[in-house]
């Protein structure tokens, strides 16, 4: 109950800060401190958002499709990698450095290559998202699996458990927390990854929309789409939180 109250208070604080920021921004624009074509006012942005709403939604659908497909494949791939590397130490030694290496290559640099190889359709975008989203999951799940308690594993062994049972009853549930932390990061990456890949080639999606409004110097629309992207990322992270709560009910058990 108290925690709930705290949550509400902190939400109110955040909203108040946000409102203050918006008002300040509006004042700056109205007083002409920054030229209007460079920094549109919040009201102008809202108007642009409302005006282009149907168009934004159709682009959003494409971006989200890419993001979800990429996120799903990336998370599945990252998870399997982690399980295999935990199970086979040789795989860990061979692949872990390579996995880290894939992260030192910036996504923006790979994207044009992917476009050249796979064209302007979904494929290169999904691949780029997979590359950016599998890594947090691999690292997080691997850390979780490896930090399983030795005594607990011994207890299960003393009860005659095989290695699969130890995985199922000790390692896997023990890695859930890490998995969800990673998933939250990957979910945010997936949207950004989709947008970046659309910048570099494509016919649909919020990234394409962004490139077009940029070329038209439509700053208000630019801000509108940035706003939309951050809201979507935020919602995705909240969705992960929600799923985590459902999957890990024991986390809440301390309160009652």
């Amino acid at each position, binding site marked *: 109950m108290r925690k709930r109250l705290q949550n509400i208070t902190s939400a109110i604080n955040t909203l108040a800060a946000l409102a203050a920021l918006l008002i300040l921004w509006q004042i700056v624009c109205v007083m002409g401190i920054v030229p209007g074509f460079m920094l549109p006012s919040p009201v102008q942005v809202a108007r642009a958002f409302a005006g282009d709403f149907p168009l934004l939604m159709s682009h959003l659908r494409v971006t989200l499709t890419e993001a979800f497909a990429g996120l799903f494949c990336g998370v599945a791939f990252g998870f399997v990698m982690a399980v295999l590397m935990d199970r086979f130490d040789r795989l860990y030694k061979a692949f872990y450095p390579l996995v880290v290496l894939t992260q030192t290559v910036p996504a923006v640099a790979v994207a044009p290559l992917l476009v050249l190889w796979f064209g302007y359709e979904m494929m290169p975008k999904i691949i780029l998202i997979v590359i950016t989203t599998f890594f947090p999951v691999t690292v997080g799940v691997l850390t979780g699996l490896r930090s399983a*308690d030795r*005594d*607990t594993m*011994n*207890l*299960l*062994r*003393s*009860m*005659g*458990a095989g290695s699969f*049972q130890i995985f199922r*009853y*000790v390692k896997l*549930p*023990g890695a*859930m927390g890490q998995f969800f932390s990673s998933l939250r990061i990957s979910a945010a990456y997936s949207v950004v990854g989709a947008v970046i890949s659309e910048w570099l080639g494509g016919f649909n999606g919020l990234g394409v929309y962004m490139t077009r409004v940029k070329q038209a110097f439509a700053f208000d629309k630019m801000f509108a789409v940035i706003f939309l992207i951050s809201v979507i990322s935020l919602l995705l992270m909240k969705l992960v939180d929600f799923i985590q709560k459902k999957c*890990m009910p*024991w986390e809440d*058990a*301390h309160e*009652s």
Partner: protein
Amino acid sequence: MSELIVENVSKSYDGRKIIKNISLTLHEGELVSILGVSGGGKTTLFNVISGLTEPDEGRVFLDGEDITGKPGRISYMLQKDLLLPYRTVEDNVALPLLLRGEKKKAAREQVRPYFEEFGLEGTQKQYPAQLSGGMRQRAALMRTYMFSQNVALLDEPFSALDTITKSSMHGWYLNIMEKIRMSTLFITHDIDEAILLSDRICLLTGRPGEITEEIVIREPKPRRKDFNLTEEFLNYKREILAALDR
């Protein structure tokens, strides 16, 4: 209920001998304590008996069958309660049954009648984090019992509890032992606890640890509630302290 025989077990870690030539027999329905100082090799001995570690020398027999290095034959309650935080109490105590391949529903069904006995009525759907120390210990004991009813190894099951809780756990434990009669090996470094609960006490002393003395507690079971306040009790305690001094 079964009989457990440990024959001449020795074990070293990193070239250092931890336990040496340990032999003991646990008869049906007996409770035998291993009493010794911290770091003396008591847990090492249990790890060997349970089959988790192979001894350098010696063998372990359960009802005549050689079970050296074969885990999964006798119940073992490790030094910590090791309840899985992400499983409800009921699913924790049912774990041995699930590992044996039973369906979740059937396993829950089977453990249900024991909750009252173990003083855990109403905690079925709770998580271990919501239990008190004494309850967690009882849940761990119950899980040990659900694994098998023939031989149990209990590694300092009550040592983490405060004195008052511990004393009430002793009363409860003596009581439940009358009903479930498992052959039990019991590690402790608490002399009073050893005298109060055991049929026999083996003293594990020295480095490497050896069983140097065996004391039989002749007080009949079920034990009187105030046994630990009697002259006989004090005599046993004197005998043990003298033996430990030697």
